[in-house]
């Protein structure tokens, strides 16, 4: 195995009120790997990724523990100026809602060129050429003409492509994609996912793909990390997790995902509601909804335990083990 490009160790994000939104998150990302970060709404996926970029909303939350290492640099220890050199240049980021994340009054080409000129100090002309190139790479037809378009002149899928072009303009090592397809139609979603995979293949990019759709993960990712209530439940290679889920939540998630397969009768469900920031359960955060919960689960936070090759889970009673009496 090659050395990971990105290592996250015990990352913890707290609000100014002291609530832990992300709690001791650890994972690493190999070169050319696509990691799927899965979890329900509010489980802290977005916050975790913004923490990697040190782009947390100022004065609302901050990183209180843990380290993030990119190559040789520990990002948590960098000065703001140093961190800016990382953003865009070494880690690119794309977002769920492309419309809101593009500046409506600036031309697409200029938004791409902006990062290039900043990081590489190239001329205006060269930056523009790079912008055209970036748009071509993400499959925008007629990029020479489209660099001068505004975001609202693009369709949803094209906007998402443009965002990817902005993020990739400086050839970053890592791309963080925060639910890049949730706002898109299924047919367009497939196009974008395909594009990400191609880029990975072509450029050896490492990608963190945030999503709540296990289907997307199954079709695009190499490995999976599952978040619940701000904590990591389980992570490992895709086939491991989907085939042999250890954590009860992961298992439930897979079970209740509707499939296009024919079927009758009621769907499988996970009972109850996801926890909210205000009242996080003690112990294992999943225990109120877990069929296998015991007193242990209610009292103690489970530690991560290896569960297979590259597969760890934080569960007192992993599914593949024998159920407690």
């Amino acid at each position: 195995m090659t050395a990971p490009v990105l290592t996250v160790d015990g990352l913890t994000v707290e609000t100014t009120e002291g609530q832990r939104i992300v709690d001791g998150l650890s994972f690493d990302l190999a070169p050319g790997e696509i990691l799927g970060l899965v979890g329900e709404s509010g489980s802290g996926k977005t916050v975790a990724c913004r923490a990697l970029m040190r782009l947390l909303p100022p004065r609302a939350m901050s990183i209180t523990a843990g380290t993030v290492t990119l190559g040789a640099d520990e990002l948590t220890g960098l000065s703001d100026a140093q961190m800016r050199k990382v953003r865009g240049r070494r880690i690119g980021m794309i977002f769920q809602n492309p419309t809101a994340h593009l500046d409506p009054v600036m031309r697409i080409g200029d938004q791409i060129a902006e990062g290039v000129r900043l990081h590489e100090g190239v001329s205006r002309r060269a930056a523009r050429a790079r912008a055209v190139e970036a748009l071509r790479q993400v499959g925008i037809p007629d990029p020479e003409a489209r660099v001068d378009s505004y975001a609202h002149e693009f369709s949803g899928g094209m906007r998402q492509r443009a965002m990817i072009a902005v993020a990739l303009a400086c050839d970053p090592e890592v791309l963080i994609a925060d639910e890049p397809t949730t706002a898109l139609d299924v047919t367009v979603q497939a196009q974008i996912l395909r594009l990400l995979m191609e880029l990975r293949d072509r450029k050896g990019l490492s990608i963190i793909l945030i999503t709540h759709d296990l289907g997307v993960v199954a079709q695009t990712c190499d490995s999976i990390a599952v978040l619940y209530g701000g904590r990591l439940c389980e992570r490992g290679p895709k086939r491991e997790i989907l085939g042999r889920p250890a954590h009860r939540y992961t298992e439930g998630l897979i079970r209740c995902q509707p499939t296009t397969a024919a079927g009758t009768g009621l769907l499988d469900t996970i009972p109850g509601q996801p926890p909210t920031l205000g009242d996080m359960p003690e112990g294992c955060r999943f225990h109120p909804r877990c069929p296998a919960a015991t007193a242990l689960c209610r009292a103690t936070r489970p530690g991560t335990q290896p569960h297979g090759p590259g597969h760890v889970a934080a569960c007192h009673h992993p599914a593949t083990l024998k159920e407690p009496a």
Partner: protein
Amino acid sequence: MHRYRFVLFRPLQFLPVIFGISVLTFVLVRLIPGDPARMLLGTRATASAIEKVRAQYGLDEPIWLQYFYFIKNLAQGEMGRSIVYKTDVLKLIATRIEPTLVLVLGSVLLALLIAVPMATLASRRRGTMADQGVRVVSTLGLGMPSFWIALMLMIVFSVNLDWFPVSGYGRSVSDKAVHMVLPCLTVALSLSAILTRSLRASLIAQINSDQATAARARGLPEGAVFWRHVMPNALIPTLNLLAVNIGWLIGGTVIVESVFAIPGMGQLLVRGIFSRDYMVVQAVAMTFAVATVLVNFLADILTVAADPRVKL
């Protein structure tokens, strides 16, 4: 470009507004009790003299006929004759329009020069003492009557420091500039308070906006994010607020003009109202109204130019 097609057709929509204004001014002026003839003749007037003046200005005609003449004249580009000044109203307005224009434009400019840095400071240091300071200053600016601000400025800058003349408009361009500093500042102080608040709010919204976050994620330093992505987006609603408030602003010049003895339209209008100089009031109000409509039209064009999304 078809985004600008509204420039051709929008003026059609102005017609009902301008018609409405003409009715409103006409009716309003005539509803005000008090007889222009008597105002003109003063206390020692005789009944026959009053009758004579009324006939001279057609005030003895039925009101609908007066309106008809008013519209008819208007269609011919005439506004009638001033009862007090005994001259063509348009001629009067022509001499008075420049000071008011300078006052309004100068105030807006000055207000922006005050508001933009203040709002920038407040929004970029949100929640700090600087922010609170800006809030206090802008609240105070808003809470002071303009005639009071004017007096203070005069005492400090004209009488004590002798930097600017107390009042008047001046003759040459540079002279006018010097004369208009304090009046513009007076209006600008309260205007900038409003603008600062509005701009601060939209700046804060934009600073926390997704597109700004995206810009930061590209590695842009905060300054670049602010000036290239936050400010342009935040300025548009503030400029529109300014356009909507133009009527308020012009109203404010009434007092400032009389305090600073600026021979502008506001003074003309107030004297017109107090002396029941119907023609003058009608003409000035119409001029103001058309100006307001034009400013909003301009704001539309500006918005369309500044924001590629907007289509009108």
